[in-house]
């Protein structure tokens, strides 16, 4: 039953899912078809629908959180699982179908030169569009983190990212549950811990079902929150030990 592959490089695909019963089955099936050797773990983040059931019958292992903790909470659970089971690399793939499993291998390729590899929109691939405050927020965040990382990053809020062993250990130590903390703060903390980051251009697909949020006010709030989260992340001292 357990698919602990005999391959030398063991890969864990972490799929955080909150009430994604409509999408998670297709996402898991697609990942399995693309990467038959990888282990898939769906982190059911306190869903009230059949997310866990659907994921399990699609052939994924399911980590069931007792209540909703947000993407950050779900992802750290996944990384803790990866660390506990001694995986060589882990990659986050969203349950809603926006991340194309075809890109996983390319993003993992980035781990040859860095500890963290981000699948980035905007990097001259695909048709992802953002405008107004949301775009300013993304440009601001990308600029600020690129300076810390000393490499050009264009899409630091992308959840489509891979981690090697070092990065998994770092994430288990520090991966905030706060909104934006999961992408921004975890990345800055990793950089402060002398990990390296690179990016790989990918195209994002539209969500399979359900609709994305945000009008102008929503984007403006997003901008304010990202400035706040970024300032905190930069000033914070590197985290030592567990809470």
């Amino acid at each position, binding site marked *: *039953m*357990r698919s602990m592959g005999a391959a030398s490089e063991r890969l864990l695909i972490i799929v955080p899912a909150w009430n994604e019963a409509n999408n998670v089955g297709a996402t898991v099936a697609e990942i399995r078809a693309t990467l038959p050797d990888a282990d898939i*773990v769906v*982190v059911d983040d306190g869903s009230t629908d059949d997310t866990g059931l659907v994921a399990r019958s699609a052939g994924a*292992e*399911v*980590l*069931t*959180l*007792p*209540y909703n*903790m947000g993407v950050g*909470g779900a992802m*750290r*659970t996944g990384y*803790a*699982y990866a660390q*506990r089971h001694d995986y060589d690399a882990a990659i986050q793939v969203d349950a809603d179908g926006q991340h194309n499993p075809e890109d996983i291998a390319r993003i993992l390729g980035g781990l040859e030169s860095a500890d963290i590899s981000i699948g980035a929109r905007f990097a001259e691939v695909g048709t992802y569009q953002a405008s107004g405050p949301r775009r300013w927020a993304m440009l601001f965040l990308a600029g600020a983190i690129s300076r810390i990382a000393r490499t050009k990053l264009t899409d630091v809020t992308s959840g489509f990212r891979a981690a090697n062993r070092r990065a998994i250990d770092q994430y288990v130590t520090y991966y905030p*549950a706060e909104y934006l903390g999961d992408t921004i703060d975890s990345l800055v903390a990793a950089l402060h811990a002398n990990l390296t980051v690179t990016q790989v251009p990918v195209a994002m697909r539209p969500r399979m079902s359900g609709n994305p949020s945000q009008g102008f006010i929503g984007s403006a709030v997003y901008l304010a929150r990202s400035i706040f989260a970024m300032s905190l992340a930069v000033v914070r001292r590197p985290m030592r030990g*567990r*809470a």
Partner: protein
Amino acid sequence: MISIGALVLGLLIVGAVTAMLLKRQLREKYAVLWLVIGLAVLLLGIFPEALLWLTLALGFQLPANLIFTLAITLLLAASLHLSYELTRSEERLRRLAEETAIARLAQSRLEADVAELKALARNRQITDDE
């Protein structure tokens, strides 16, 4: 001249904190602050002159100003401390939730393995019996 109001309030605080401590409803680290506050109120009830003297010494215009300033500062500090403790316990709760999720998956795998082994053992017994 003893101030009855302050005396009663001080006694109430000290009494309530002590009762909660004895019933294990309050941890010592939180109790200390409230005991100190209660005792301070009690002392002010017994020696109201001390308040007048403090008001003059610290340069406040009215004793009431001093009391309010002290009370607000203490309450701010107390609620800030509570937010700090809450943040810490939320973080610990998060770790525990992660652990339960991982343990739950491990358990269901074990249960499946055990069921498989049991079925295997049963089959073997049947073939042995024949």
